[in-house]
């Protein structure tokens, strides 16, 4: 990992800690693998690898009733599979859910199989009125606690979506 990427990962993790997050349930995409490794070795968080992204939604929703501030960490494809869980659990019962994801399929992504994420992820979030913060510049990382707070205040899911450049510390 480059020094730039280490700095970016560290900055994101510090904002998670500042938000009060104590539980992170994750399923990787390759852009967030380093972030997951660093969450795993940081004692401020309990990290739980899950079998599918919907399980992260279930676990973090339950953690709310256990008084544990939690976050689900997943790639864009994973978030696309979570519409059922989010709209059924979190929308129905007004349970907050904080999610980190990746902006796959946008300009610069070398993987053609992510084209659908580039075309539909933000539109999908708009279509189900799912608030999101796009982190396209390093300075926006500082807004993570604000996004988490919004999630808690509104009792709704909130997504923070990162570009590859920010995750690599290049932007």
């Amino acid at each position, binding site marked *: 990992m480059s020094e730039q990427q280490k700095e970016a990962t560290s900055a994101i993790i510090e904002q998670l800690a500042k938000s009060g997050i104590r*539980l992170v349930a994750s399923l990787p995409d390759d852009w967030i693998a380093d972030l997951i490794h660093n969450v795993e070795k940081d004692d401020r968080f309990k990290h739980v690898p899950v079998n599918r992204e*919907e399980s992260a*939604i*279930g*676990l*973090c929703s*339950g953690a709310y*009733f*256990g008084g544990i501030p939690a976050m689900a960490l997943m790639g864009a494809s994973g978030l696309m599979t979570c519409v059922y869980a989010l709209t059924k*659990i979190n929308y129905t019962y007004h349970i907050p859910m904080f999610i980190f994801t990746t902006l796959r399929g946008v300009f610069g992504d070398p993987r053609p199989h992510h084209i659908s994420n580039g075309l539909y992820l933000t539109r999908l979030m708009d279509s189900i009125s799912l608030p999101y913060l796009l982190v396209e510049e390093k300075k926006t990382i500082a807004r993570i606690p604000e996004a988490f707070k919004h999630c808690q205040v509104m009792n709704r899911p909130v997504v923070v979506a990162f570009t590859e450049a920010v995750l690599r510390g290049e932007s």
Partner: protein
Amino acid sequence: MNLKECFQYFASRQEDGVVITSAGVTSGTWWRTTHDMDRVFYLGASMSMISMFGAGIAMGAPKLPVWVFMGDGAFVMNPGMLMVERDLDLPNLKHFLVSNRVYNATGAVSLPNSRRNDYAAIARAVGIERVFYIDSLDALKAQFDKIVLQPGHTFTVLEIEPLAEKPGGVPIDDVESKIRFGRYIEKTAGIKIFRHPATEPIVR
């Protein structure tokens, strides 16, 4: 085994712990058995997520017994949840699989691979050590203390007969259910769940 009789026995042994039920007959039957609206969360709006949901509660309230009643229709959608449960190995989480081999609430249509599914074997295969198979009320009574009162995560298959009639829904508003359940946990487990934003500092 008859589900109503089975749930009557569980209800008679429930102390201060909480119950999570899944969509369909588990929610409807638990409601008709107990009329409880505080110690139970009827997660009727979602299938296959309730053991993860229960695990989240069990992590935050480690002294609170958490019983999860999941239908096998929900289980077959997400059997991989058992791998996460095994990793977590939460001593206060008791996962009960209500197995009737059909999608009972939606017309008693057969599950895939219905009669051959060996749910207990699946649980053992992922390394869960305390796995039980119960097919009669007498067996449940005989094994109850071992399953529920002894500390340690358990996975128990409750083999029941499909219901001839649907039990119907649960007459509680979804948000009221959240508040009542959360207040019960706050009072019983001594943890803070609900924080009104007016009382919290604004994070900048």
